[in-house]
């Protein structure tokens, strides 16, 4: 499984497809995140940025996951499937590869906010919460990207629309009564901008929501890939 994940990551990086999300991340870092916090509320602002970063990254992570899973030509996907000894190995390896690349992109996006948070002496617990939040949001975004990959939606135009619509719907659902269906972006943004204490104290509920969402969506993805003819 590790070898197959490594093969998919190598293909993604060597094909230079990785440059697309990387440039988007660098653009966000340059235009938004480099404007560091200042003034008497600098610590609060720095923690708010730690909440903003996974919100900015969510669509980029989903896009990168879809692109990575689509890098292998269909026939190569067949060859990889015969090379892997277990039927579920290609699915798990694909998700592992996409999640690993997303963590690397997330690390690049987080460098500046983390340095800013440390420099303004933001609470260590809030900084750790920001990092943990990124790990969980990257997983959810990876699964959204996987659901719009070519193995599930063969038409590239339809899959791109599904990706955009899915990301928008998951955000908008959070505004209404169906917020339990959404990725809890509104909740974590609200908590992050209410200060370090609220960010830390609200994190368990947000984390539980993200884990439950990822478990359900991930399980459905596994079932779908297994029942694909």
């Amino acid at each position: 499984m590790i070898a197959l994940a490594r093969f998919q990551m190598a293909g993604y990086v060597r094909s230079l497809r990785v440059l697309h999300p990387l440039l988007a991340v660098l653009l966000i870092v340059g235009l938004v995140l480099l404007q560091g916090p200042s003034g008497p509320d600098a610590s609060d602002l720095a923690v708010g940025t730690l909440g903003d970063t996974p919100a900015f990254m969510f669509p980029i992570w989903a896009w990168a996951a879809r692109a990575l899973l689509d890098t292998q030509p269909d026939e190569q996907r067949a060859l990889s499937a015969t090379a892997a000894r277990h039927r579920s190995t290609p699915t798990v390896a694909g998700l592992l590869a996409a999640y690993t690349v997303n963590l690397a992109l997330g690390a690049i996006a987080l460098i500046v906010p983390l340095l800013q948070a440390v420099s303004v002496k933001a609470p260590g617990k809030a900084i750790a919460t920001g990092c943990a939040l990124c790990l969980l949001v990257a997983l959810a975004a990876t699964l959204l990207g996987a659901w719009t990959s070519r193995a599930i939606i063969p038409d590239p135009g339809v899959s791109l629309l599904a990706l955009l619509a899915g990301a928008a719907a998951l955000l908008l659902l959070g505004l209404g009564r169906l917020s339990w269906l959404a990725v809890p972006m509104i909740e974590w943004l609200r908590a992050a901008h209410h200060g370090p204490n609220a960010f830390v104290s609200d994190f368990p509920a947000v984390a539980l929501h993200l884990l439950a969402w990822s478990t359900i969506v991930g399980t459905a993805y596994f079932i779908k890939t297994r029942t694909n003819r």
Partner: protein
Amino acid sequence: MRLENVAFRYRRRDPWVLKDVTLSLTPGGITEVTGRNGAGKSTLLRLIAGLRHPHRGTIEGRPRRVGYAPERFPVDQPFTVGSYLRHMAAIRRVPSRAIGPWAERLAFQHLLDVRLPELSKGSAQKVGLAQALLADPALLILDEPFAGLDATTRDALPALITELTTRGTTVVVSDHQRCIEALPDVTRLHVADATVTPLTPTSPNTRVLEVIVREDEIDTVETKLRADGYDVRRPDR
């Protein structure tokens, strides 16, 4: 390995590509799949390889080590031949040193540093064969393996297939190039009208038809008849 009442179609409302397919593959045997273009040969091979799953029926006894060489090897990948095969060896959990002997045997050792998109059709076909053979497969599926190969490799491949079968490998091959017709004890399956029929000399619904053609047209006519799914033999071969 056995297929029992297997039926397959690509989408729910599509016509059946294969229906009521029941057949057995004996360990160490060679099975040749014939049929005209679009009859469902590649679909049958993919079902046997486990790349497609039947809508109805069951497939049992598939070995764990399966080698599959597709009709068109996917060259649109950002690897050199060597790095691609090293990745495939790692996925198959075999050491990289297994690549060298196959590269030598299939005569592409000089291409190991060439990028996949730069390969000719025949060279790409060899890489496709090599990745299928890397892990000493118990079931080897070859979809038109001779297409585009140079004469030397094309002549060497039947002997290689025989060697594998003597070691117990089950080989299933679709072959329009009539390269394995000289091999003994080949089971022939004909795919037509969504069904798979064994072709044997004693098959009650087959007859021998002699066709007289000009010497210079013999290859063309034979290829055409094979493409239409007929079992063609030459008296002098």
